């Protein structure tokens, strides 16, 4: 069953000069137990989408969609507090900025215990305190923190980035969410810890059947740990489908550039030789090019590209490009 099913998600910012559309008609869906990667150039709208799903964007942003279904129920049509309740119960997010999630003035024990909902503690009320403590320790072990005694008594500033990030994950999984959204969970971490964390997210997904939406710049890790993939460019969805088939044969020139720019995917590349890169940079939202937004940077652009391409599909593989890299004749 589809857990999350969003059609034509649009996110706009109110500014003195009018509305700026930062995310434009993006589709996104997740099955139960699926892990989906979300990649794209910096500023392409990944974090905005994540925040729109958990409903934490402030009032300056307008969120609209033709469909915003969670377990078959359209969230945007629910009254606000109903919406908050469903999201709060089922969806957890690990933020790009660690500072957003941990309270610097409270000890870890307190914060972690607070994140555990009552209904997950099985036992009589007079044992609640004890059970909560056991559960907090269990969560720390689960995320790979062995030394729980010392960590529980610490304040966030006394701990390393890596440990803080693990605690954030522990807090996120404390409520046994159906969907876990991780927005660049590892950028601040060293490579050994990074690998550990990705494995942790993957195992959590396998063990508990939790769906994961993983936003990351580390394409190698996305390739290894996700089943499906959505690629954004400049607020629009340019390609989506199974991760393995996209990595093997991307249809969209932007996805192609993204994959080719990573030395790991280019086994024959000699050290110190130039990496594949598109010229120029992502346009600002106030001055978008006409037609295909990749146009000015695209090596395959032709005159047809001044018309905005639609999202086409070939089996389960979606792309929005007039000249997909397979060549139209194979379609």
């Amino acid at each position, binding site marked *: 069953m589809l857990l999350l099913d969003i059609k034509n998600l649009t996110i706009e910012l109110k500014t003195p000069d009018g509305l700026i559309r930062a995310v434009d008609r993006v589709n996104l869906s997740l099955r139960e137990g699926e892990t989906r990667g979300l990649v794209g150039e*910096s500023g392409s709208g990944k974090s905005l989408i994540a925040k729109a799903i958990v409903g934490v964007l402030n009032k300056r942003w307008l969120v609209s969609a033709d469909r915003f279904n969670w377990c078959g129920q359209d969230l945007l049509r629910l009254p606000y507090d109903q919406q908050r309740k469903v999201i709060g119960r089922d969806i957890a997010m690990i933020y790009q900025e660690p500072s957003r999630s941990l309270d610097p003035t409270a000890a870890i024990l307190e914060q972690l215990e607070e994140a555990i909902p009552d209904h997950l503690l099985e036992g009589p009320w007079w044992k609640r305190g004890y059970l909560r403590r056991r559960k907090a320790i269990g969560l720390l072990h689960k995320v790979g923190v062995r030394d729980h005694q010392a960590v529980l008594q610490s304040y966030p500033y006394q701990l390393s980035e890596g440990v803080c990030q693990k605690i954030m994950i522990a807090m996120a999984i404390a409520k046994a969410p159906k969907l876990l959204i991780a927005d660049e969970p590892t950028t601040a971490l060293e490579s050994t810890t990074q690998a550990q964390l990705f494995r942790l997210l993957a195992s959590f997904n396998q063990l508990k059947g939790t769906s994961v939406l993983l936003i990351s710049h580390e394409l190698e890790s996305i390739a290894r740990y996700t089943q499906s993939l959505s690629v954004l460019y400049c607020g629009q969805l340019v390609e989506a489908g199974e991760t393995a088939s996209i990595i093997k044969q991307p249809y969209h020139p932007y996805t192609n550039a993204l994959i080719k720019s990573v030395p790991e995917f280019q086994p024959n590349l000699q050290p110190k030789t130039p990496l594949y890169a598109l010229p120029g940079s992502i346009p600002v939202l106030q001055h978008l090019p006409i037609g295909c937004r990749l146009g000015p940077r695209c090596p395959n652009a032709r005159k047809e590209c001044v018309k905005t391409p639609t999202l086409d599909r070939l089996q389960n593989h979606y792309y929005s490009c007039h000249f997909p890299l397979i060549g139209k004749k194979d379609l």
Partner: protein
Amino acid sequence: MNTLLEVRDLCKTYHKQSGWFSQRSVIALQNISFTLAEGKTLAIVGETGSGKSTLAKLLVGIEKPDSGDILLAGQPVKISHYRQYNHVIRFIFQDAAKSLNPHQKIGQMLDDVLRFSTVLDAQQRKLKIRQTLKQLGLLDEHSEYYPHMFSGGQLQRVALARALILDPKLLILDEALTALDPSLRAQIVNLLLELQQKSGLAYLLITNHLRLVRHIADDLLVLHQGTALDYGNTAHVFSNAEHDYSRKLINSAIA
């Protein structure tokens, strides 16, 4: 190949107050030695707390080593002479945005750098600023921009412009490439490689990003708890690391 930077037996210990009467010492660096030739790249990898940042601080001149020497083109570097060699060694840190003054236009900021460290007149400075912006794929108009008007990746270019405008011989990049998206990272890497080929610039790359290290670094030094474990040609260390720790680090990146 001329040796540009030589570091000999560098040691640094921090004394931390723990409680009112007792002191705890932390050995941050222990007998670190390496050399870096013109036009080459040395990567220093290790976890947080391995001494990477301390090493950067000593090279920048923010802190003094307890013992050991830092030689630049054969001459010992002294902290009191920092301003003198500040042309030759430049730095870029991870958080480019934070190190820029939000109330100053980019052109003004670059002009300040030139006024502080060179004898160029106003006309020459203007020309130099224009050349540098162009070299980094930025436009003349960008001189009139404030930092918040740039995207993250452009800001990283601005930081590079600030570092490169003095034609340094050595650029130290402290995790400056890590948080970039892949296509932007590829652009910056290409730019760095090109500058290195054209002008013989040397790079000291302090990073965790081992996959990138493999592509751009000539030599690799693995730091662990303040000591140097493996040190040598990058390809060699990748395939024949002697220490378990280095192997673990390398495997986590390439496995």
